[in-house]
């Protein structure tokens, strides 16, 4: 039967090939060292886009190959990557049997984000974590924030949206990528993670440590790359629906179609929620909203060497919230705020393999993000305020990869970024222009030592030139123990509001001016007689600089047995020129005029450790922990000098803050941990998981006037969140899931609006394959 199938395949191939001169085919079987077939593993010819998977019996075939000598590579989870030299003649070629060594660790996952080249996870010299699509499904998550909240060392923080804190950095310092390209549209620095649906995610890669040598601005704390599903060889489709507390409904579907050289992947997602109240809040802390997301992935193989891919995303979000606004004359209005958000991106990419060793990639990524908000008074429906924000981003880029040999690989790339922003709080449309060049060399010496050296230069129209190098190394002491370390520089460009904001609060009366606007707007205010006292002369100011950091990471990966992986990473980040607001003048109304300055120096350091232990065949336990210290260097110094004080608000007793009492930056937990147990039995279709995340105590804000964290009442107590989920495959591969998020119903009204209390849910996953369609027709 097998051989018959194979014969048919090869026959079809040959007949196909007779139509086209000078092309050959290779077919064969992939087996492991115990002669068992290895199904569903990736097989490709190096330096070409000829690529396929072994089928369920381990057979594979690659068609329409230009005759010549190739290296056939087989890789995947269960085997060590194996290279075989094949000589492909015109027409039919001999059957190739590839025997691969069974992988010791079965953890071979290919990742791309850390080095911008495909590399096995265990070979990456940089701290990197992968969350698989399978794990996301088991967790029952619908939005990206839910997935990231359970990962070691990441904390969810809410500031104009739900963002992520990494290695102690605020959300604005982590670059969020989709398929390697930046997602735009941040509010006050936060990219709202609830915007991202997770139903089409193949895997999420989280890189820790400055990565500006590859990605430029914003990659200061690290990079989160969302990799979406790509077109597959076979037709498949999937429908999923989930209903949860707070009237939350998610419906998503995807489909894979393959027509000859054309592969199409489509995804659509609809998410609606009624939002929720917390504590005794008068208005909903999370307002009702609905989101629609569409994503596609199209690939077209012109020929063996040339492939075009086109990925795109379109998303709408509508929400209506109500809240009270009090004006300085004590009038209070109930306001209804209707907001709409729309963003799209598109990324055509052309890949051309010159030969087995040289590859060119050209792409043109474009994206647009738009929001508008209309505020009306609930009492009479009259307009209170209207605002909008529009950002565009386009980035053409060319990259050349050279594969020298199995020990040396180089790439170099050049690109430019054109950005524009227009908003009601800016005086006019603003444009940015950035030209960049980057290069990286990856080499292995002495068999055990792998070194990657990279550098990138950015020349920007506003903030000048940035040069960011990075050096990383991995030393494989043995099969079981390896050490890795990296040193790199990262930067974050001043964002639009820091440069161009021109905002006067109509209620409080203070003003905030971006550093590029400050002279002009300040003069204008002065002429209008609005300035009472000048604290900092705007003409004495220098242009604002990009924030930058040096990042050091060092750690190890230990795999004592095939069941245990233990990773540990020590990190230290020294951040300079951090931008903060400071008053520069006093207005005649007594309020201040603020602008942005390079003010502070901060450091973050800590340890992150992760253990995964396969207790039983189908059961894996994960334990993660992070210890973090994040402090402002100036404050540390001033505390040492005895210049910080605090007043007991009850006794009015003023005392000096000691070094030990200074708790560092607000919103950073010294201890964070997680423990997760996953059980999944593919044979009987049962799955179960229980996940706990701990966020240690952290400072929420100043309560005694010195603006720093130093007393117990400035902390929020540590807390655990527990989630459980059970799933069962029922009729025809349909999977039913029920679960409870936040089992303990933990909430902290006023302080943590992002935690909604206990959530119950149920979901249904319906896969559709050719086989199921056929059986339905019968």
């Amino acid at each position, binding site marked *: 039967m097998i051989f018959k199938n194979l014969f048919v395949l090869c026959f079809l191939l040959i007949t196909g090939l007779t139509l086209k001169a000078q092309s050959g085919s290779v077919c064969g079987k992939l087996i492991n060292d115990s002669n068992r077939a290895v199904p569903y593993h990736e097989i490709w010819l190096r330096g070409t886009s000829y690529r396929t998977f072994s089928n369920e019996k381990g057979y594979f075939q690659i068609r329409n190959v230009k005759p010549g000598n190739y290296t056939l590579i087989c890789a995947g989870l269960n085997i060590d990557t194996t290279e075989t030299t094949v000589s492909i003649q015109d027409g039919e070629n001999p059957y190739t049997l590839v025997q691969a060594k069974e992988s010791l660790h079965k953890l071979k996952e290919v990742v791309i984000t850390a080095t911008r080249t495909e590399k096995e996870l265990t070979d990456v010299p940089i701290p990197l974590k992968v969350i698989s699509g399978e794990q996301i499904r088991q967790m029952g998550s619908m939005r990206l924030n839910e997935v990231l909240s359970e990962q070691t060392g990441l904390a969810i923080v809410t500031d104009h949206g739900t963002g992520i804190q990494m290695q102690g950095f605020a959300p604005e310092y982590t670059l969020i990528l989709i398929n390697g390209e930046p997602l735009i549209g941040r509010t006050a620095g936060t990219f709202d993670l609830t915007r991202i649906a997770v139903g089409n995610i193949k895997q999420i890669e989280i890189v820790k440590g400055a990565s500006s040598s590859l990605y430029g601005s914003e990659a200061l704390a690290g990079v989160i790359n969302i990799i979406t599903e790509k077109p597959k060889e076979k037709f498949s489709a999937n429908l999923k629906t989930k209903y949860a507390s707070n009237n939350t409904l998610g419906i998503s579907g995807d489909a894979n179609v393959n027509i000859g050289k054309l592969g199409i992947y489509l995804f659509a997602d609809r998410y609606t929620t009624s939002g929720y109240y917390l504590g005794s809040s008068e208005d909903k802390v999370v307002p009702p909203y609905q989101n629609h997301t569409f994503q596609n992935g199209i690939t077209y193989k012109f020929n063996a060497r040339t492939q075009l891919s086109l990925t795109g995303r379109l998303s709408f979000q509508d929400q209506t919230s109500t809240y009270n606004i*009090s004006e300085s004359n*004590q009038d209070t209005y109930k306001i209804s705020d209707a907001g709409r958000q729309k963003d799209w991106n598109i990324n055509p990419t052309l890949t051309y393999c010159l030969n087995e060793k040289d590859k060119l990639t050209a792409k043109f990524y474009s994206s647009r993000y738009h929001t508008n908000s209309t505020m009306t008074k609930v009492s009479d429906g009259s307009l209170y305020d209207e605002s909008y924000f529009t950002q565009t981003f386009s980035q053409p880029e060319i990259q050349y990869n050279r594969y020298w040999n199995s020990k040396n690989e180089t790439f170099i790339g050049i690109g430019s970024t054109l950005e524009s922003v227009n908003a009601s709080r800016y005086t006019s449309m603003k444009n940015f222009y950035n030209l960049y060049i980057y290069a990286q060399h990856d080499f292995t010496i002495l068999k055990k030592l792998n070194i990657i050296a990279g550098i990138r230069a950015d020349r920007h129209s506003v903030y000048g030139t940035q040069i960011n190098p990075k050096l990383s190394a991995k030393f494989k002491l043995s099969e079981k123990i390896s050490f890795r370390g990296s040193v790199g520089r990262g930067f974050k460009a001043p964002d639009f509001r820091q440069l161009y904001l021109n905002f006067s609060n109509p209620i*409080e009366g203070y003003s905030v001016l971006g550093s590029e606007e400050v002279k002009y707007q300040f003069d204008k205010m002065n002429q209008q007689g609005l300035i*009472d*006292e*000048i*604290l900092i002369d705007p003409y004495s100011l220098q242009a604002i600089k990009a924030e930058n950091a040096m990042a050091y990471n060092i750690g190890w990966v230990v795999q004592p047995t095939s069941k245990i992986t233990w990773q540990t990473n020590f990190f230290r980040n020294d951040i300079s020129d951090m931008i903060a607001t*400071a*008053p520069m003048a*006093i207005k005649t109304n*007594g309020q*201040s005029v603020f602008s942005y300055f390079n003010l502070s120096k901060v450091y973050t350091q800590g340890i992150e450790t992760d253990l995964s232990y396969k207790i039983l065949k189908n059961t894996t336990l994960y334990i993660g922990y992070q210890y973090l210290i994040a402090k402002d260097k100036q404050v540390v110094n001033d505390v040492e000098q005895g*210049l*910080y*004080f*605090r*007043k007991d*608000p*009850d006794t*009015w007793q*003023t*005392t*000096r803050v000691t070094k030990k009492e200074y708790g560092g930056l607000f919103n950073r937990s010294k201890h964070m941990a997680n423990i997760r147990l996953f059980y999944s039995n593919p044979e009987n279709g049962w799955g179960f998981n229980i996940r706990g995340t701990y966020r240690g105590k952290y400072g929420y*804000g*100043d*309560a*005694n*006037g*010195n*603006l720093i964290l130093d007393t117990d009442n400035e902390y929020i107590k540590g807390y655990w969140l527990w989630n459980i989920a059970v799933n069962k495959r029922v009729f025809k591969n349909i999977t039913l899931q029920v679960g409870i998020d936040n089992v303990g119903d933990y909430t902290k009204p006023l302080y943590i609006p992002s935690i909604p209390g206990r959530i119950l849910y149920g979901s249904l996953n319906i896969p559709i394959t050719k086989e199921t369609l056929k059986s339905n027709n019968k």
Partner: protein
Amino acid sequence: MYKLNRLLIGVLLLTAITSCNKDKDDAPQPQQVLSEPIIVKNIPADVASLGHYTFFSFKDNDTIPRSDSATTRWDIAFKSTTIIVNSGSSGPGAAGAQIVVGLFDELAEAPANGYNSDNASSFAIPTGTGTGWYNYSGEPNHVITPIPGRVLVVQTSDGKYAKVEILSFYKDAPATPAYQDPTGRWYTFRYIYQPDGSRFF
């Protein structure tokens, strides 16, 4: 050798510390023993937003009527977050003030010089958040909090010295002022006035 060095350093440090303490003991004492600081509660500072100052005399430990604003009877006056002293652009007196960073109780002696008077472009006690006596918390609570460890040292209209610590900007000095607390512009402060003309408190 290393251990010995450490020991040596330890001994040196110890002597340094003890000698410091000795210095303190030898410091000159105030000529007149002063009583506990006087606590003044709920001085309104333009509560009705009329642009009016409330004037205060340390010697009298009392407010001075607004009709006497052009005299040297008052030392210091309050309007919202602005504090003026009777000098320069603010009044006919020769008062001055400066902000000393430190503990109120520890400040045993007023600085000999460094006193500023009010003028058209700046006040002796600077206004604005973080620059003078208070911090404004901004979003989301909009609370004015006196910066702890800021002592206002005032050279009064009659040439005497007083040290002042602002305790609260809200009526009845609540421990935690509420969100956008509407009871602002009520000062609570404590002070020590040295009537003998010396700089010692």
